[in-house]
């Protein structure tokens, strides 16, 4: 971490105006003004350049001139204008793969297992107007470098410029899994909202979309062979993700360096399956829901029933075909045993077989996971499958901690790779009050609101040994959508989700106070790109870094 600390120090000492997010691992900057030439070109050396890299180059060229981000200082860059006349112009950026590397699409690089992704890049921006370069050992690394390059520039009076040339950046992520989870079951989000979110994620180098596609409330995912689930379980025939929608989302994400891990949460969170298959679901919509589920409606898979187990195996098998990711989340959170206590079919099956509920869960988990593993997929589960239930999981299984950050240690002590998503740091939906009816003074269970500063202060390896720390893959912000929909998606997510993006790219220990001006830059740039990121402060403060600190 010493090198990182030095780099951050250098960055804040010598380049207070760089609008980069996440902060690169190592950066050196100067103080010359450099403009982008009107005919600025980006070229990729070599043959067989993949289409998604060429498309990324095209998008970057466009964004460089359409972002029109004014520097966040009083006057918004007017003071820089006098330096423009003397400034050199940059007319070319060249992307080059390192020696021995061969071209593969960004998509295929992004869809590798997190541990196998190569996102490192080296960026050089000379001050004299000679060509800028990005080199990397993968197209994914080149793409990350392009994203950084696009954040180097401000605009004033139609001049696109930096005042910090020359710039040299050596960069690679601290953690390979940097995600964002969206729940599209409690309320539905149209494909365009998801794509806009993917664009914003890509801007901050988030590389994993964890798609909690279905839940007890609705089943919007159309899975070939299982279309009765969405026919009967979606909120309406318009509120579904068709096969072509899913392909569209997966390829849109892939081209932006993002892998899509779908979650079909089982055996809990499945009440909606009862619409098409009432026999498969115990305690469906049982009342009082609070006895049988953490939220309404109650309903869980009758996993003791072998037909249900093979049905879910087949369902996973069909769903896997839609998602090229190496990972597939089977969920496993919030299983309620009282639901099964009152379920006659479950009880008689248990009596007949002489097994316990936990033993039956173990069988269900092993069988459904085997389907995935046979197809080369790594199962991903919520923490209870490791900490609460006594089920057999392959050691490759990845575990997401959500209940509390205090449970991290227990998961890694069992030797599983871990993804941080603890509610006490990363839940974007907390703090909006209770949503259950007839509960006038109810608060959200995970009160209070999780500020960006709080997430930013998270230590991914707190209380872990060096060996245990190696099991940390990264982490993510999460949006559960009981109180969210397309109407507030952007404001509830952005810029907060960017705080974990930097935490897991740049590494922990960042100073939130020093980061704030850059987060303002990011927020303003997101808005320029049509993402409704909220204001973190009055604009008066955004234009005067430090002036609104607590002790200023």
């Amino acid at each position, binding site marked *: 971490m010493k090198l990182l600390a030095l780099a951050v120090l250098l960055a804040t000492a010598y380049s207070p105006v760089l609008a980069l997010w996440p902060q690169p691992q190592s950066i050196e900057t100067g103080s010359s003004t450099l403009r982008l030439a009107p005919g600025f070109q980006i070229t990729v050396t070599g043959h067989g350049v993949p289409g998604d890299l060429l498309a990324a180059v095209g998008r970057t060229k466009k964004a460089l001139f359409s972002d029109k981000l004014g520097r966040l200082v009083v006057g*918004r860059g007017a003071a820089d204008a006098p330096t423009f006349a003397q400034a050199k112009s940059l007319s070319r950026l060249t992307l080059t793969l390192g020696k021995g590397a061969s071209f593969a699409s960004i998509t295929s690089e992004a869809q590798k297992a997190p541990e196998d992704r190569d996102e490192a890049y080296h960026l050089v921006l000379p001050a004299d107007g000679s060509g800028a370069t990005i080199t990397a050992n993968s197209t994914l690394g080149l793409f990350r470098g392009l994203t950084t390059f696009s954040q180097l520039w401000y605009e004033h009076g139609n001049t696109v410029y930096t005042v910090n040339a020359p710039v040299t950046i050596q960069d690679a992520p601290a953690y390979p899994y940097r995600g964002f989870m969206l729940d599209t*079951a*409690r*309320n*539905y989000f149209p494909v365009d909202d998801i794509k806009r979110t993917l664009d914003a994620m890509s801007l901050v180098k988030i590389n994993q979309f964890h798609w909690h596609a279905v839940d007890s*409330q609705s089943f919007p995912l159309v899975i070939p062979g299982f279309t009765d689930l969405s026919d009967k379980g979606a909120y*309406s025939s318009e509120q579904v993700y068709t096969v072509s929608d899913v392909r569209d989302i997966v390829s849109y994400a892939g081209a932006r360096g993002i892998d899509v891990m779908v979650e079909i949460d089982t055996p809990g969170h499945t009440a909606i399956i009862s619409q098409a298959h009432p026999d498969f679901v115990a305690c469906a*919509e049982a009342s009082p*829901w*609070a006895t049988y589920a953490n*939220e*309404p*409606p109650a309903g869980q898979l009758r996993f003791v029933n072998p037909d249900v187990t093979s049905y879910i195996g087949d369902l996973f098998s069909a769903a896997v075909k839609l998602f090229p990711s190496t990972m597939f989340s089977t969920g496993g959170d919030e299983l309620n045993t009282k639901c099964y206590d009152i379920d006659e079919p479950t009880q008689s099956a248990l009596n007949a077989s002489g097994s316990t509920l936990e033993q039956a869960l173990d069988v269900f988990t092993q069988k459904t996971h085997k389907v995935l593993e046979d197809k080369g997929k790594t199962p991903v589960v919520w923490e209870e499958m490791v900490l609460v239930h006594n089920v057999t999981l392959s050691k490759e299984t990845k575990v997401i901690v959500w209940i509390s950050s205090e449970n991290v240690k227990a998961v890694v002590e069992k030797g599983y790779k871990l993804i941080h998503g603890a509610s006490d740091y990363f839940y974007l939906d907390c*703090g*909006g*009050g*209770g*949503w*259950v*009816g*007839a*509960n*006038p*003074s*109810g*608060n959200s269970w995970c009160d*209070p*609101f*999780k*500020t960006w*500063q*709080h997430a930013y*202060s998270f230590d991914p390896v707190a209380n872990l040994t060096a060996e245990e720390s190696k099991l940390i893959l990264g982490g993510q912000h999460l949006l559960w959508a*009981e*109180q*969210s*929909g397309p*109407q*507030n998606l*952007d*404001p509830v997510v952005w810029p907060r989700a960017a705080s974990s993006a930097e935490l897991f790219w740049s590494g922990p220990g960042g100073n*939130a*106070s020093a980061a704030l001006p850059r987060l303002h830059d990011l927020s303003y740039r997101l*808005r320029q790109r049509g993402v*409704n*990121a*909220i*204001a973190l*402060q*009055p*604009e*008066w*403060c955004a*234009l005067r870094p*430090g*002036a*609104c600190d*607590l*002790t*200023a």
Partner: protein
Amino acid sequence: MGPARPYALVLLAFFTRCALALWPIPRSLVGGTTPVKLSPSFSIDLGDVHDPPADLLAAASRSRSRLDSDRFQRLVLGRGASDTGAIARAHTLHSVSLALCPGSLVRSIADETNKPIDSKSESYELWIPTNDTRAMLTANSTLGLLRGLTTFEQLWYDYGGVKYMLDGPLRIVDEPAFPYRGFSFDTSRNFYPVSDILRTIDAMSWVKLSVLYWHIIDSQSFPLGIPAFPELSEKGAYSLDEIYTGDDVQRIIKFANERGVDVVVEMDWPGHTTAISSAYPEHIACASKSPWSKYASEPPAGQLRIASPSTLSFAQTLFASVAQMLPGTMMSSGGDEVNLPCWEEDEQTKADLARRNITIDDALNEFVQTVQGVIVEHGKTPFIKSDMVLTHNAPVVDDTVVVVWQKSEDATAVAQRGLRLIHQPSNYFYLDCGGGEWLGNDVLGNSWCDPFKTWQRAYSFDPYTNLTIQQFSLVLGGQMPLWSEQSSPENLDPIVWPRLAAGAEVFWTGATLPDGLPRLNTNATASTHALARLNELRYRMVDRGVNAIALQPKWCVLRPGECDLES
């Protein structure tokens, strides 16, 4: 105009069967069980209104087009598919006739809206018959007709393009419990384009809010373009593009007034004025002085030099210039959060005080009297923030309206002084609470008014708590404010809607629901009661282009009663 007691039992059954999607719920309402639909050629007939004013014609025209464009379907499983039989046999309405009660003068909605707050007539009666093809809407004023049209629009569901309701015949007799039902909007901490303000006003009118309390300027920026003082906004706005020109202000006020929304401009003085220092540094003490926390409640510090005669004269002229721009009968001089060390350490203020041999309290009193004098001279009722009265004992004119903001308990102390008041307590109504700290370098800080104020919390407010019956008449109503340190066009709709509607019903419907039960009974927030209607309002708002947030998963919305705590 109490509820029709004999019908209470009928209505109870009616409400559990199918809640009408009305918000705020009328004071009195009697419905039946006959389905009614609108003829495709349905018309809003103003023939009985002699020489109808242009803004009433426009309102009728908007209502007519909303009857077509609203595609709001019933929030039940199937979204109205089970109503097809009812729709087929429904009684068809061909028109609604608007009429003013005999003896009423025909004035524009805007003129009615700009009457003094305690003399507006917003009452109306609406009759949806099942034995006639003509519905009737009557009122004592065009403003009442507007309120009735707003209710009329909310009666209808859409299924397959047919607009229908299930509760005919229906008689509504309605008027607000409180005349002042507001939204306080800060456009200084962050700027909002005119179009955002207009959309917000439109949505306000859908829930019969009557006042936009426009906190237009503050220490951070001065977006108000004043023709006589152009340099204030030229130098004090965030940019030349982030200014409300005189024309913008007139356009906003006209748009609001035509929708029954009065506009109260607040010039929050003598604190909250730092932005004036960009153009007039001589009038501001402790401008941007550090540490800000010693001199102000939030950065940047800066207050008018109240002891300076030239500043007083400047304030008087400036206030008059703004007052002249405003057609309404109310104006606020704010006055919250004044900071004494700011003046105590200001050399010029010290010299002014010494030369004039007065204290800061004297100067503050003089300042308040001066700006209130300007407001009164312009024929307007002065508003002032509660701390100016309760903390500083500033002498205010008798008909001052006090904005109670720090905490709900302060209303009692204000009433004890015999002053009229509106409720805006931070512990119930602040829309900005709960988003965490916005100051820098305060990593674990929370917003000062944590937690988030839920709609349920706002809805639970009782405007008469701790007041004597004799004091009730002092309560004009209340408002929910949005302070914009952490808000901007990006989250305006989601942070305001539908929560602001909770305040709208608190002050329109008052203490009693049309079924005769107390509004604040234990089931108020149950999904078979207010929540079901609020979900309907939210879906209708989204349909109309306002990004109101989801209160629940749609699964719950379609099944009223199944997501209650005890369901």
